[in-house]
Each structure stands twice: as C-alpha cells, then as structure tokens.
C-alpha cells in the first residue's frame, strides 16, 4: 500500500509513468558485461541445480512421508529456478548452448556453485541446516535481485522469491524445532552447524565478476548481503538454542571460481552420465 506522501504527491501519474518506462537493460545494451553476466547467472543456476540435485537424493528415503514430500517440493522449485537462470545464461552467452548443455556438459571446474550446496546430504540435520544457511542467503539475494537493473534478472528473481520465502520459513522453523527438541536432535543440529559454518563465508566473498555486476546495477555486492543474513541466522540459531558458532566462517571457498570439493565430481558423474555416455541423443 502506498504511504501517505506518495498519495499526495501532485505529479504521481508522471512518476508512475516514469517508473513504467522500460529502462535500458544493461544485460542487453552493454556487450562488455556479458562475460560477467554469464558467470553471475551460472553462479546462481549452478547453486540451485546442485542443491536441488542433493535434495532429490532424499526422495523415497525421508524420515516421514510428509517430510519426503516437502523436500521434493523444494527440490522441484530449485530445479525450476535452475532452468530459468541457466536458460538466461545460455541466451546471454550466445554460443548455441542450452540450459541442459550447461547443466550436463560442463565439468566440475566450470561449475560455479557454492561449496556449501555440493556437500553430501549426511543426515537430516545436516541437510536441513545446510538448507537453512543457504535459504537465508538465497532469500536476501533474490530480494535484492528483484530490484536489478536487468529486467530479465529481476523477472526471474520475482518468480523465485515467492517460493524461497516459503523455503526459508520452513527451514528456519525446523532448525528451531530440532535444535530445541531432544538432546539427540540438538546434538545432531549443533554438529551439523559446526561442520557447515566454515562454508558460509563464501556467500559473501566478492570478486571482480561481482564488482562488475554490482557496478552495472545487475546484482548486489555479495558483502552487502551479510548483515541481513547474519541477523536472520543469529535470531533463528538463538531460538534454536544453538547459538552462532565462534569459529571463522570464511575458511572454505572457491566454488564460485570453479575450485570445488571432491564431492562435486561424483555428483556430476552421476548426474551427467546419460548425456556423456550417449552424446547427441534426445531424451
């Protein structure tokens, strides 16, 4: 709902028309930006792809039918986001590749996902804690991307954000409940948090690509997401009786530049098997 001053601004119609006028999309008008934009879109799409893949590994093996179904919903959302991000990346690249080509025919060193999402599922504690730490970042990132100067990026962010709001609501809720549940659930959640914490700093470590995209108004500077993320994470972890770990968060990084853990290679070997074994076949 518009606040009162807006309503009383005399030239409100002119302002509205101005806001509706299509802004030049830097993604289309600034050719030098394309490599950075392609890279940035792969970073988003690869993280949603790899996490969606990890979650899909749970299908049929969840701790309760209700949870099995819920995890599959999140995986489906993330695969949907992947199709949008990598689809746009492929368009921007203009090299005749499709979203599927990017997902199925790049090797690990070309993947740009966060290390956090490629870590093996472990138990539900690790899966849910990883989900929460990612969701809190993902939510903030998408919020900011809805204001991107690139209309295409903003459009995808708006669609994805609707779903990610729920992801965050759900994972926060479960982290609180399991952190403050039984002694065993607390122990498992605390262990998962300790194990995952060193991977979280990567979400906020910018490089030249990020700087170029931030400069062009396409994506936020990653460091600028930290405060909001830290606020949500602190609130939830406190309520979960877990507390924020004291150790350094920026130890494990490199995924966004293509330097991964050993785990990604196996994930890709499995995921890409058919495309690699039967090149050019249609499915």
């Amino acid at each position, binding site marked *: 709902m518009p606040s009162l001053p807006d309503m009383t601004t005399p030239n409100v119609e002119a302002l509205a028309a101005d806001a509706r006028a299509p802004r030049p999309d830097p993604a289309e008008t600034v050719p030098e930006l394309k490599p950075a934009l392609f890279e940035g879109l792969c970073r988003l799409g690869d993280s949603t792809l790899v996490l969606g893949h990890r979650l899909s590994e749970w299908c049929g093996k969840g701790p309760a039918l*209700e949870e099995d179904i*819920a995890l599959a919903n999140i995986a489906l959302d993330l695969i949907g986001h992947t199709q949008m991000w990598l689809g746009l990346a492929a368009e921007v690249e203009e090299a005749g590749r499709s979203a599927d080509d990017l997902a199925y025919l790049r090797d690990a060193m070309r993947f740009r996902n966060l290390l956090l999402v490629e870590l093996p599922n472990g138990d539900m504690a690790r899966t849910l804690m990883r989900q929460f730490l990612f969701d809190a970042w993902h939510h903030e990132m998408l919020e900011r991307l809805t204001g991107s100067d690139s209309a295409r990026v903003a459009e995808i962010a708006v669609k994805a954000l609707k779903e990610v709001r729920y992801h965050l609501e759900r994972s926060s*809720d479960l982290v609180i*409940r399991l952190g403050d549940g039984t002694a065993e659930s607390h122990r498992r959640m605390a262990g998962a948090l300790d194990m995952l914490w060193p991977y979280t700093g990567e979400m906020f470590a910018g490089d030249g690509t990020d700087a170029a995209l931030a400069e062009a108004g396409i994506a936020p500077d990653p460091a600028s997401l930290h405060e909001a993320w830290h606020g949500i994470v602190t609130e939830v972890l406190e309520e979960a009786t877990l507390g924020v770990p004291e150790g350094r968060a920026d130890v494990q990084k490199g995924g966004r530049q293509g330097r991964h853990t050993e785990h990604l290679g196996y994930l890709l070997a499995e995921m890409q098997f058919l495309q690699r074994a039967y090149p050019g076949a249609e499915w």
Partner: protein
Amino acid sequence: MAREWPLWEIFIRSQNGLNHRHVGSLHAPDAETAIHNARDVYTRRKEGVSIWVVRSADITASRPSEKGPLFDPAEDKVYRHPTFYDIPDDVGHM
C-alpha cells in the same frame, strides 16, 4: 514404539468466495507443522488459498446410529426446496 505424530484433518479453501473443504488428513507434531505439511501435501498443484487444520481427535462427530433422527426430519420439509412450488412457465425465470 515412539509416540506417533497425531493425525490432523485438513480443510482447504480453493479460492476466495468458496467454503473450506475437507481434503484429507496427515500427521504432524503440532498445528503449525500441520499447516506446513498440508501446504506441501495437499496443494502441490496450486489447489488452495487458505488452509485449516484440526486435530482429528478434537472432532466431535454425530454417531452414525443417530443418522436417522438428525437427518430424516429435513426430508419431510419438502417446502424448503424450490422444486416444491409449481410456478407457471409464463412467469419467467424465478
């Protein structure tokens, strides 16, 4: 065997203007989680705008043996149904 999550009955309003309708049930540890689970289980195809959850054990139902007394009287009151009234076609739609 550990205590089972209680059973909840799920009611969904498919669009504003319609009643909530019973769609099924599920298990959840409490009401908030039941709502989350209901969203995931019963609106996978965008079926709802509003969800009610009620613990199955909290529902008081008429006893089936009362089915006669509770519902039979209405059958006598045919005057409650529009078809009871014979209105000539010439009157037009009513």
